[in-house]
């Protein structure tokens, strides 16, 4: 008869096994990372500061002080002449301490109480022809418990796309509509991750996910709308019974007029 592994033996097995294996990174890892460092946009970095000032330290500190004083003088002069145009910047997502009072439009800044901070990046994605695009997720949900995802591109012309997704949609494919011209169609494709086992939630149930990697493709043939498709793969999450699982893909299409305003999509019926 097969003896069952007790916890102590399993612990020892795991520890011994995990101690084995390579522990030295390839030489190119640091080299390649450092090669990318100069092009990385740092969180909270003042983009108008020349990179030289951030890397040369005290050697150019006096020059930095002069620049700050110069900017202060410019602001004072500007306040006399009139308010300057705000620098172009993408709107930020609300933090968990914020409440969303109204859903933002694609062309307006998100309005929320509390401190606005950029949230954890869900994952960088490549558009192919330009980019990189970043996906950000708001920690605060909307009043009807939707999660806001922002797909943003910081380039010569910043663009962003908001999608409001209900991570607890049912398995049946369905459509989600919004007032205004924002429309998102989400179809869930679920596949069993446990070999040979039936899905205990097949047909009904819910799936909550808080991460995933997505690819977004824009339809460049339209001149008035931002349109395209979205595909997310390998989204880990938790069934409503607490069991962990994986949705292998989610696809969505979207089309909206960036000059229009839109309200939060209605809940899934």
């Amino acid at each position: 008869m097969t003896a069952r592994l007790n916890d102590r033996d399993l612990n020892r097995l795991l520890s011994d096994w995990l101690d084995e294996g390579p522990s030295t990174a390839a030489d190119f890892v640091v080299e390649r990372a450092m090669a990318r460092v100069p092009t990385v946009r740092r969180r909270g970095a003042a983009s108008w500061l020349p990179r030289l000032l951030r890397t040369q330290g005290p050697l150019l500190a006096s020059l930095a002080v002069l620049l700050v004083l110069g900017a202060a003088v410019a602001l004072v002069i500007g306040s006399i002449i009139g308010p300057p145009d705000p620098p172009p910047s993408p709107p930020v997502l609300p933090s968990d301490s914020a409440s969303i009072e109204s859903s933002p439009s694609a062309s307006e800044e998100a309005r929320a109480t509390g401190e606005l901070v950029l949230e954890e990046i869900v994952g960088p994605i490549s558009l192919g022809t330009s980019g990189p695009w970043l996906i950000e997720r708001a920690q605060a949900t909307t009043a009807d418990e939707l999660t806001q995802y922002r797909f943003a591109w910081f380039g010569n012309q910043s663009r962003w796309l908001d999608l409001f997704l209900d991570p607890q949609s049912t398995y049946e494919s369905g459509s989600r509509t919004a007032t205004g011209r924002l429309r998102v169609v989400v179809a869930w494709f679920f596949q069993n991750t446990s070999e040979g086992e039936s899905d205990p939630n097949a047909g009904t149930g819910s799936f909550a996910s808080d991460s995933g990697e997505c690819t977004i493709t824009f339809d460049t043939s339209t001149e008035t709308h931002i349109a395209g498709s979205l595909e997310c793969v390998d989204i880990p999450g938790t069934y409503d019974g607490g069991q962990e699982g994986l949705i292998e893909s989610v696809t969505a299409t979207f089309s909206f007029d960036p000059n229009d305003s839109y309200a939060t999509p209605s809940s899934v019926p």
Partner: protein
Amino acid sequence: MRQDLVARAKGGEEAAFAQLAREIVDRLFSIAFRILRDVDAANDAAQEALVKIWRELPALRDVERFDAWSYRILVNACYAEHRKLRRAVPAALAPPLIDADDPIAAVADRDQLERGFGRLPAEQRAALVLQHYLDLSLAEIAEVLDVPIGTVRSRLHYARDGMRAALEADARAAEARGEVAT
């Protein structure tokens, strides 16, 4: 010394960050390999983690928490790499001869462990590695993974169940084939 490097890198000194990267890269790779079980993917994850560490360092409030904070970034990079790795269909290896009276010796075959571990979701793998390779406490794992302690317990529970089930299934299969040593 490390905190000074972190502080200087946080302030934007690329030279300081380069030195910091050289100090931590092997540690990052080791953890990544044990989660991903793939050398190339682990190198990629370590590289991505270093870049993200540089990008996010200005947001690190307490330089003393750098280790746990960097582990979180690495684990997220591992999640991304794991999604890229398509789960390979394991080769139909014949289980080794098993001594039913000594299950520990019977499970010495690392292929069984690899197979069992390979079936786990990345989140469960990460929890196991943080516990058994880094010897982190539940609270420390929760901080690294940025999840509640209850979630850590749940992931470890399912991970251990998954590993045990895989190991015992191999043993039962070998027993059924009459390969048990007598």
